[in-house]
């Protein structure tokens, strides 16, 4: 069902407010009234109004000043300015400041109906536009799922079968394997596709920020909470919420999240009103949640609530046959973005890419190709344009130990696990190298 258009009537005359409000209510709109600009701005800060009908002459702040303030607060609200005394100057000023229209009191009933109908049409068109834009972005991202390997075909088959259901999904896989793209593909192929897909990167936020981000907050809930703000669960109403790096959330947030998933309702931070939202949840992690449950760092009940369907995205080294397709795709993507003629890649470079273990997965490959296009000769990507880990930032590396482990493994692979040559290349003695291999549990077959 289409949602009701909300209208705010701002006029210092009670009879005008009552008349307009009755008229709009009879037309099926949701109406609020304010007797002055100050009250109106308070209401606008706390609630969203599609249409604001404001008198120009009011005691205190006038309608034009209020219009400017509304436009700085809510640029998506349509403001119609009313006046009892038509003047070309004020009309021009109002329209320049962003008013949708300017009308003289009293109105002809038909003019008022037309005005509100036109404003409503504009609002619905803007909403439709936004939905279509999101749809295009979603479809675009689904195209990014490149792969002809058996492993990738299996994943796509799972995406297709799970998309139509409403079940929670956990997407697992190493960093850089494209977990978010899988989430987008599930959303874009589900019945919720015309509604938002809202992404939250849990690992990037502190506990209190994550709480306010997910549940929203009321004005004054904490320092800096100047306005009421919708949370991500509210934004995802009728759509999908994607919680990336779910393993990083604190025990307190795990309890909160479990409650929300069970009741599909929550209270904004600093608020007392229960809000409901109909969302589907998709999570992603590069950690082993099952062992986190066994270790007691992730709640078992939350794990089972989330893990209705598990899709594991294979690392790139397990689907090397997809590398040529991905390389082609990234060459086309970056040549188009950078406005360069399409280039190719020579056989030696392609062969080397096929042998490389890609600890940073597709993200690392994409970075490599982008860099090669930027620094290359503009005709062909050759071996010398590919850094193979030396200059690349590997996104799976989060500590100095990770870096050392990856680097030693690469040099060992480079010298086919010849300890003497590797130790020489690393400028350490053989004992130190043996100790490092033992410390990081490195094995030749890795």
């Amino acid at each position, binding site marked *: 069902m289409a949602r009701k258009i909300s209208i705010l009537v701002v006029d210092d*005359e009670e*009879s*005008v407010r*009552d*008349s*307009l409000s*009755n*008229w709009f*209510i*009879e*037309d*099926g709109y949701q109406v609020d009234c304010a007797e002055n600009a100050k009250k109106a701005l308070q209401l606008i800060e706390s609630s969203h109004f599609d249409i604001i009908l404001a008198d120009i002459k009011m005691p205190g702040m006038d309608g034009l000043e209020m219009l400017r303030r509304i436009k700085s607060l809510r640029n998506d609200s349509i403001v119609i300015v009313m006046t009892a005394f038509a003047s070309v100057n004020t009309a021009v000023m109002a329209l320049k400041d962003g008013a949708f229209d300017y009308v003289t*009191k*009293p*109105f*002809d*009933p*038909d003019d*008022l*109906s037309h005005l509100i109908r036109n404003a409503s049409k504009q609002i619905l068109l803007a909403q439709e536009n936004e939905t279509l834009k999101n749809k295009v972005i979603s479809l675009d991202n689904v195209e990014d799922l490149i792969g002809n390997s058996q492993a990738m075909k299996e994943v796509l088959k799972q995406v297709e079968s799970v998309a139509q259901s409403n079940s929670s999904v956990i997407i697992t896989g190493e960093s850089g394997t494209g977990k978010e793209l899988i989430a987008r593909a599930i959303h874009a192929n589900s019945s919720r596709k015309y509604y938002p897909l809202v992404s939250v990167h849990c690992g990037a936020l502190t506990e209190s920020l994550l709480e306010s981000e997910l549940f929203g907050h009321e004005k004054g809930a904490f320092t800096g909470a100047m306005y009421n703000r919708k949370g991500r669960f509210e934004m995802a109403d009728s759509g999908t919420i994607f919680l990336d790096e779910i393993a990083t959330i604190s025990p307190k947030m795990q309890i909160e999240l479990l409650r929300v998933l069970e009741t599909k309702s929550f209270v904004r931070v600093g608020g007392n009103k229960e809000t409901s939202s109909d969302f589907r949840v998709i999570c992603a992690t590069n950690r082993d949640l099952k062992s986190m449950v066994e270790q007691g760092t992730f709640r078992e009940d939350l794990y089972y609530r989330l893990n209705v369907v598990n899709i594991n995205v294979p690392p790139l080294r397990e689907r090397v046959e997809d590398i040529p397709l991905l390389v082609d795709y990234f060459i086309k993507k970056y040549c188009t973005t950078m406005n360069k003629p399409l280039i190719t890649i020579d056989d030696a470079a392609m062969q080397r890419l096929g042998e490389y273990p890609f600890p940073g997965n597709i993200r690392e490959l994409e970075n490599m190709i982008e860099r090669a296009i930027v620094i290359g000769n503009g005709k062909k990507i050759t071996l010398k344009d590919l850094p193979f880990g030396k200059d690349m930032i590997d996104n799976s590396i989060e500590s100095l130990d990770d870096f050392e482990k990856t680097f030693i493994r690469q040099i060992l692979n480079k010298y086919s696990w010849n300890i003497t040559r590797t130790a020489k290349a690393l400028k350490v003695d053989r004992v130190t190298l043996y100790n490092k291999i033992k410390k990081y549990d490195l094995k030749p077959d890795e």
Partner: protein
Amino acid sequence: MTQPNITLISFGYFGKHFLEKIAEAVKLEYKYSVIIKESHLDLSEFFDPGRRQYNGNKLLHAVNTLSMPQTLKTVGMFSVDLFIPILTYIFGQAELNGHSGIASLYRLSNERYGIAPDDKLLLERFTKEVIHELGHTFGLIHCMTPDCVMRSGTYVEDIDQKDQHLCHNCRRQLDAADKAW
């Protein structure tokens, strides 16, 4: 105990036959017995000299005060030009989910638009207007169905386009509200 009824109060001259026809149509639509009453108000108190029209908000309030206890809904019928502060004119108005409504003949006659008089058409228009305002008192809002009597009409041509009956949806809402009441 007296059954609840709908009362139509005429202010000013209305033909007996004209009022009976309206009462008949209202009874058919809302299934309540309809009482016709005649009353008098000093309309000069409601006259706005600046606009040369009568204040619809004040008249609605006055009609509301005339309601009898056994009366479920009341509609005041006038033949003067009505306005509310924000609009240049109204055909009528009512309290949504309330007790009373008002309707006026003034802008419904063909003569007002320089066309030959048509008493049958005038009766039809006014009947639709009275049934429409009563619909609001029963909680019905404007309906998008083209021939529903609850469709909003700002010109007489709009009133002519619609039927004098509630559409299926509005009827269902009315029945649901009736049961709740």
